[in-house]
């Protein structure tokens, strides 16, 4: 069962935020790690090449002399800063998110469901020093596997948790409202039809054909048998679309 944190809002409503599993956490981290490494390397290499190209530094004596000091300032220091400050800076600026977390569909929240404070986000990041021990976040991952909220030591210290973040699907409402107006389906049928159409591109041909057949059969509609390869798939999709637009006699 998926763990969740429950927030009681001021109006007495309860909201459930599903806790992100260790897999999503690791996936987000790996994306972020690649981004910050590439950014830091790119920054340093651009300035190194620029300096070499402009003959500002002698390639044989990178460490020594005034030009290397400048390279240290404009190339090295920002590159190190990008690598080490990526997480704290972006998590603060993006309110508990980073590009990797956004791609993995997760977000950091405090235990009351709000965006964590700057202090909490800094503490969470400082404890990476212990979570990453002895190497490759072994300690942090082990703790995350063992805790019910799947959190590493940094999260425990900062009282934060990683949750899945869904975006409001405004289109869903439009589609469901349109179907409710134009078809005679029950709300449950509208939901199934809408979800099936939405997920159509993600599903394999066999699975979507089976689901579409089941749905049509529940409406007492028969699916013709004499289709050529790929024709059935196209027919089922257009039939479902037609139904969603009210192409069924109202009862």
């Amino acid at each position, binding site marked *: 069962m998926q763990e969740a944190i429950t927030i009681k809002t001021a109006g007495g409503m309860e909201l459930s935020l599903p806790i992100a599993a260790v897999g999503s956490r690791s996936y987000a981290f790996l994306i972020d790690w690649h981004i910050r490494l590439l950014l830091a390397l790119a920054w340093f290499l651009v300035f190194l090449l620029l300096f070499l190209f402009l003959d500002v530094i002698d390639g044989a004596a990178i460490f020594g002399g005034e030009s290397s000091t400048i390279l240290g300032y404009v190339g*090295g220091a920002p590159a190190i800063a990008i690598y080490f400050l990526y997480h704290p800076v972006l998590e603060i600026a993006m309110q508990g998110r980073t590009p990797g977390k956004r791609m993995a569909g997760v977000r950091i929240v405090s235990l009351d469901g*709000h965006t964590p404070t700057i202090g909490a986000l800094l503490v969470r990041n400082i404890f990476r020093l212990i979570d990453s021990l002895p190497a490759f976040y072994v300690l942090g991952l082990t703790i995350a596997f063992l805790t019910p909220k799947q959190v590493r030591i940094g999260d425990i210290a900062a009282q934060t948790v990683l949750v899945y973040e869904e975006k409001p699907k405004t289109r869903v*409402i439009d589609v469901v409202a349109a179907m409710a107006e134009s078809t005679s389906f029950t709300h449950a049928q509208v939901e199934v039809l809408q979800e099936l159409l939405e997920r159509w591109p993600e599903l394999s041909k066999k699975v979507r054909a089976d689901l579409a057949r089941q749905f049509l059969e529940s409406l007492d509609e028969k699916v013709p048998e004499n289709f050529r390869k790929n024709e059935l798939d196209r027919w089922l999709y257009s039939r479902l679309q037609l139904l969603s637009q009210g192409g069924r006699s109202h009862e």
Partner: protein
Amino acid sequence: MNKSQNALANWLSGRKEQWKRLAVLVGKRRDQRDDNPDEVRETVTGFEALARDLSMARDNLADTQVVRHLEVLFAQAHETVYRKAHSPWQDLLTLYREEIPALVGGKLRGAILATVAIFLGTLAVGWLLVSLNPELAGLFASETMINKVQQGELWTDDMLNVLPSSVLSLAILTNNIVVALTAFVLGALYGLGTLYIIALNGFMLGGIFAFTAQHDMDGRLFQFVVAHGIVELSVICLAGAAGMQLGEALIRPGPRTRVAAFQEVVAETGKLLFVIVPFLVGAGIIEGFISPDPRFPLLSRVVVGVCYGVLLWLVLTGKIWRKRSGSDRGV
């Protein structure tokens, strides 16, 4: 179409534009700082209406996509409407003026004294060990360092020939910050990690001073260390004290659970990092630009070291922020 479907269709078409508008407003509020009062009012009204809609949808549509959509929108709107007022500069000012002095003079006082005692104790032990058994210097110093000292040179003498001051400063301050932060977070290992780092630093400093003293070079080492060392070592002891406090919370949580005690102490002692990090940046700059530069005489190094130390003390005690009262001025 039956009655209930008709009602649903009417409800959805009647409300969907308001939900869309609320989603737009919530998005704007999240990114924007200068709030338009009309839009703020509209957001709050929209949020209240959404709460009613969600309640009704939960009752009638159970676990459907409409409910899920409304829940996501509700969570975002709730975050926007109920988020705390954001005043980072005011918070930072309060932190430096009130919270840190209260922490250092109150709850952390014992831990600071204990950490300094451990550091000085291990420093003395390191000194004694190497003084009595010179061959033990190998435990604290690398072969290159030992060879240099035996040739009458300090390993710090030609630092600026190897690295420019800027790169040196950067490397030093990065290393020092990592050491201090590690001393703090390793307190989570029941204080043992912190104890190890503080004791190791004490042993090393004592041992190396004893080793250089055997070659009559301790004065030169002191000359190198004094400008940055006063603050650097004090700040590492401070980080150690915060780490010790973490260990204490885990070993003796009192009436709280271990996790609650740990979280409480992190929230309190973590504030010290706002002193530790900036002062280590300053110490790193001094260590890169002043300490290895032979043009600075001992007196100027002592002045820099003592003044920087006094500044740290003034910040920690909060005296730097306090205006003198009338009686203090003799009025």
